[in-house]
């Protein structure tokens, strides 16, 4: 039925991007409806919620372990360059430590699960054929899937950082933040930098999510897709640590993940950050294109 006959109901969500078709005035636009349905599917899935719980628990465990290992009151070595020594002086640093440790495996795992499952999971269940005959539209469905992956990745990063900040505040002193470069900035600016780190890492996970989305369009077996994404991430990280491969390092998807530590220095090394963001953007565009080309041209036989 034509949505044009719909009249006033206040929009339940945010305003849409400009490229959306003009929906009925006042009603929930159809793209937002699909996206909400997609997000509900991701965030109400018990498995995904369990992942978020694990992501929240790890910084807490980490904080407790470091608290036990740190001599009480020791404000060890202000000029020290390591995160760990900074932690004794400021709980905010637990956020950076947690992100640094978890970006190696746990965060990519969470993103791999959701992105690898995105299309392959629907194909495996057979729900894909029902969605496509609605018709949801292949491009439209894929776009909603990718946005949901990005939102999940961002949520995962936020959960890690929030849990780490809370734990850090509870177990360590909180105050002006001494950066890796030795300068001290007020707590407010320190937290702002934490926010930027979170967004940077979320961008990195969005790029990994695009890879997962593409892999997911090639199979009906979500476990296979999830494993493939994770293996790709780990192989990239290993290759990034082999000096003989130095030539290709800047092009590896994981190479720029840890460059968020530029945000912990003054002046901020913006070129590193921009390189990183550029790399994530290029990966996202390339793999979303692959996913789109594949998904819109293949027969759905599942």
């Amino acid at each position, binding site marked *: 039925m034509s*949505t044009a006959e*719909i009249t006033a109901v206040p929009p339940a969500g945010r305003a849409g991007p400009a490229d959306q078709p003009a929906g009925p005035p006042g009603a929930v636009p159809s793209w937002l409806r699909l996206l909400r349905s997609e997000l509900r599917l991701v965030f109400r899935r018990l498995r995904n919620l369990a992942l978020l719980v694990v992501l929240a628990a790890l910084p807490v465990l980490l904080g407790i372990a470091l608290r036990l290992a740190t001599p009480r009151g020791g404000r060890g070595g202000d000029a020290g360059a390591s995160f760990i020594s900074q932690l004794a002086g400021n709980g905010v640093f637990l956020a950076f430590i947690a992100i640094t440790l978890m970006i190696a495996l746990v965060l990519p795992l969470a993103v791999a699960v959701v992105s690898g499952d995105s299309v392959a999971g629907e194909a495996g269940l057979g729900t894909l054929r029902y969605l496509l005959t609605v018709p949801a*539209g292949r491009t439209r469905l894929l776009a909603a899937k990718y946005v949901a992956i990005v939102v999940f990745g961002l949520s995962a990063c936020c959960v890690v950082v929030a849990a780490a900040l809370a734990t850090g505040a509870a177990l360590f002193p909180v105050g002006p933040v001494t950066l890796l470069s030795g300068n001290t900035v007020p707590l407010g600016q320190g937290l702002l930098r934490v926010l930027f780190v979170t967004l940077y890492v979320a961008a990195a996970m969005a790029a990994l999510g695009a890879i997962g989305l593409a892999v997911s369009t090639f199979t009906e077996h979500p476990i296979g897709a999830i494993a493939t994404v994770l293996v790709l991430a780990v192989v990239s990280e290993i290759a990034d640590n082999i000096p003989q491969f130095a030539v290709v390092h800047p092009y590896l998807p994981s190479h720029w993940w840890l460059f968020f530590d530029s945000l912990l220095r003054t002046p901020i090394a913006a070129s590193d950050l921009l390189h990183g963001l550029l790399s994530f953007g290029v990966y996202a565009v390339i793999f979303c294109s692959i996913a789109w080309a594949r998904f819109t041209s293949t027969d759905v036989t599942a």
Partner: protein
Amino acid sequence: MSTAGTGTDADTGADAGAPERGTGPEAGTGPDGGTGPESGPGPESGPGAGPPGRPGLAITTSGLTKRFRGGQLAVDDLGLAVPRGSIYGFLGPNGSGKTTTIRMLLGLIYPTRGSVRLLGEPVPGAAARVLPRVGSLVEGPAFYPYLSGRANLARIDAADRTTDPRTAAARIDAALDRVGLLSAARKRYRAYSLGMKQRLAIATGLLRPRELIILDEPTNGLDPQGTREVRGLIREIATDGVTVLVSSHLLAEVEQICTHVGVMRTGRLVFQGTLDELRSRGSRRVVIRTTQPSEAAATLAALGLADIQPADGEVSAQLGDQSPERICRELVLAGVGVAGLATPRPNLEDLFVGLTGVGFDVDG
């Protein structure tokens, strides 16, 4: 016209000339700004590739062919013609290409050659425009096991850009009510019985008024009671003037409700027409009860009847263009005692098996 029982019928007038609904949003939602696939890779299916959709037909295919990668020819030069308002039984043994055909009708599989028109619109070219008017169940029910029946339907409805979100709850409950699942709406899909799953799948087709409903093996795996329920449901849907295409590998399951049938065999359509046309296709036989079968057989042979089969106490043969009266007279004149003479209508099931089974060559 109301199939979902909600007040949204206004724009589903049955003619194909309805203004474009739900087009457009396909393009530009992708992160890559891609264009809609529905207008993209469908090979040779653009306007003009097939015959223009005739107004009296809900589904037409022309030269529809699908060769899968690996060379398997699943559907071969298929020319379906499903009249509007009919209940079309799409028959054939498992593996004869029914599901592949249905997937091509719905734009899930791209044809290798040939074209599809649903309600006058080309598919997959105009899939976004025409599929909202088509309800379907493809290859058995498939839902999220961890969601309730109601949540599953809500998910399907949310994907439809042409429905009104504010009537969703009412339409979903109406659809559940229609298939008798309202009391189980909150139950998880995982806990549904096979019959309930099948009915939930049919309910997806009832979320909004439709002009055409395509049901792929809706009675597969159901017990006789479930089969009867589904059959009743189909009949009820069709009384609203909705065209129904229902596939099955068992003629008996659909024979009571169909007006038309199409019979598939190894990817080809070997028969298409009304049930009466199918019946009249079968050659009538004449069966003579007699105590002298061998003499009777000789007389029949003299009359030029084919396929004479003498048995104990009776003889049968193909009637051909002979009249039963003449046969009877000739038998009596030849001194054969005729205890009974009958020309039974061929059994539809036998005809169906003859069309689809092995070893019985039918020119199709």
